[in-house]
């Protein structure tokens, strides 16, 4: 990106803000970690971390909460990226949930998400004892996110108290906490979906292929199309699979991630499609729709 007349474009301003946040965390916390979810936002966050500490690798580990139901391609991408960047990668699976055989198909999205994702995340945070955790959430994603601070305080039980957030002024962040408490840090708070895509395009950031349209085997499930990623999908459902040209606007657990019919095979095409579409990004996610205010509730319980 070019720099003209001592004025930064909005993307350069956002980049500077995110880097400022990351450096501040590394300077002030004992044991920060980055929650890496493999998606496009995580990819941007990782790229910014590289830039913030270059020529050193980012001085903290990546952590991934593996629900065991992520797309296979996401897992391969995750392992490859961590190696390339030279960062340590911690992977946590809720073993209890795995032993119980928790599945989005049999237990439903709410229970699966609660056990494998929310509880899995809490276990991971207890295990790794991070005092600050970077997350890739953006304020434009969802209503309760719009009110979250960049430094979001969590008590010993990882709970968020929306009515009692610390005032956050200028770029002066208060990261002080007692032992056991922690701060979730959202360096991408002020980025929008378009900013993320544009930055990926300009900076040539690697993202999983699942974002690009391709012929993939999909089935109708829960009012949307999902991809057949392995044979844990019930057989009667798998039998209905058809090859369709689809892509994903967000990435998560494959049974909970709706595919959209698309011809977008390049980044400009993806951006074009995104701008012309009339449906917001989170629609593809089955977990927010249970009831209004459901994200607020999940966040209070410790969800990211």
């Amino acid at each position: 990106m070019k720099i003209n007349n001592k004025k930064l474009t909005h993307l350069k301003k956002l980049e500077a803000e995110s880097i400022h946040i990351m450096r501040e965390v590394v300077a002030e916390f004992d044991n920060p970690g980055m929650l890496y979810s493999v998606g496009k936002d995580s990819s941007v966050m990782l790229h910014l971390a590289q830039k913030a500490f270059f020529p050193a690798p980012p001085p903290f580990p990546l952590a991934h909460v593996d629900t065991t139901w992520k797309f296979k391609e996401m897992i391969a991408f995750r392992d490859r990226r961590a190696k390339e960047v030279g960062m340590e990668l911690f992977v946590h699976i809720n073993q209890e949930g795995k032993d119980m055989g928790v599945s989005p198909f049999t237990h439903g999205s709410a229970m699966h998400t609660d056990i494998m994702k929310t509880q899995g995340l809490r276990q991971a945070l207890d295990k790794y004892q991070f005092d600050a955790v970077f997350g890739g959430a953006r304020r434009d994603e969802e209503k309760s996110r719009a009110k979250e601070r960049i430094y979001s305080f969590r008590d010993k039980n990882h709970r968020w108290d929306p009515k009692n957030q610390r005032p956050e002024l200028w770029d002066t962040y208060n990261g002080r906490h007692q032992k056991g408490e922690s701060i979730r840090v959202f360096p991408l708070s002020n980025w929008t979906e378009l900013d993320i895509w544009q930055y990926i395009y300009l900076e040539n950031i690697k993202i999983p292929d699942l974002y690009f349209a391709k012929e993939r085997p999909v089935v109708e499930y829960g009012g949307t199309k999902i991809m057949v990623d392995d044979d844990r999908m019930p057989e009667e459902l798998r039998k209905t699979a058809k090859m369709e040209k689809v892509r994903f606007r967000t990435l998560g657990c494959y049974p909970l991630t709706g595919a959209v019919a698309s011809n977008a095979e390049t980044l400009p095409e993806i951006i074009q499609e995104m701008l012309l579409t009339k449906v917001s990004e989170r629609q593809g996610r089955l977990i927010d729709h249970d009831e209004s205010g459901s994200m607020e509730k999940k966040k209070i319980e410790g969800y990211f």
Partner: protein
Amino acid sequence: MAVEQNTLIESDIEAYLNQHENKELLRFITCGSVDDGKSTLIGRLLHDSKMIFEDQLAAINKDSKKHGTTGETVDLALLVDGLQSEREQGITIDVAYRFFATDKRKFIIADTPGHEQYTRNMATGASTADLSIILIDARHGVQTQTKRHSYISNLLGINNIVIAVNKMDLVDFSEARFNEIKEEYNAFATELGIENPIFIPVSALTGDNVVTASENMAWFSGPPLMELLDTIPLTDMTDLEHFRLPVQYVNRPHLDFRGFCGSIAAGTIQKGDAITVLPSFKTSTVKQVIQPASSLEEMEVDSAFAPMAVTLTMEDEIDISRGDMIVKSSDIPEMADALEVMLVWMDEKAMKPNSDYLIKRATNVITGRFTQIDHKVNINTLEKHDANLLELNEIAQCQLSLNRMISFDPYTSIKGTGSFIVIDKYTNATLAAGMILRKLEGDSSLKNQRVYSDFEKELNALVRTQFPEWQCKSIDEL
């Protein structure tokens, strides 16, 4: 119309992306009191600029029936009232951030609550804003909250003030009423030192003068709100003259590299510039200016400017750590450990003079205390009062005494080096926002702090050991 056009997106996405890449960022705050229609105004901006997706609209259609206050029509305010707890009460509690873009600019709105008890949240939103939209209900005119919002916007250094006179539909779109309010506000603005506020008559509910020019108010010759936001010259308040780099982090990946990272608070820096490190006054020369980069080839640049996040390396091996300030040797800022400041108190627990607090200013965290409240400001009347305590949402001019010298600039010159937050040493809560006015002449920290003799210290120790039930304080803790 200023709204983002879909045509370029469809016909030439690369050209569109190029345009979007070069957009300016405008951050603004919206303030109004309960029932001024602020949420409706923002909902209208987002809705009419086509930033609302179909599924979101469907969700609010459903919610309108449950919580809405507009009867049959879709309640646009529900687009922006986020939290369940807020919807139940029908008011906004916390700052919410919203985003939209036009052909020229990208906008971040800090939607702040209007009620007096949320003054702290308004200050939070105002701290990062370039422009403030203050709503006035056309039926009620200038209210005490209008004054409060104006005062805080001004205090936090927002130079562009837009007065949106809302609910014009309820006063028959009357030009006379609009002019009356304008006059009333101007009288007050002059007193505050607000220069050239901009007035727009609108109706958020009907959309008049929000995105499209109002047919009902042909007498108004100015642009509608959206066009104004799109075209108002951005008086960039970033100081590019006085270089200040608060050192955030020292990057030492190996023995041959020692980079000093930070976000430039003001000014510009070039390779070869002579610098001084404060407060140690050690000097060196800039060897490399490093921009955010992910490869060695693109890492070095000749110069950098505020508000870039950079890394500097020096020709000499000198000791520089987090909390230090790098400045140009030709332009050294003032140093002080006693300052006159403005404080916005944000905690239920009142500020007590001479209690110890943590002061975080840029990358410094220093113990300090407020030795005196010069005066408290009644922001509804602008009257000044004496005070012994500073309570939640109150604003005062105080004297701050720090345990260490810092280099600083007045807030009105450089925000990054002239602002601070106050943190509770024990609960870690953020207690207040502070803005440095000037150095306190004659060093009050000594004036107000009594110096005890050795005899007095011994007596104190004796009392503490012999009569613990008196609960006598140690002199060292005073």
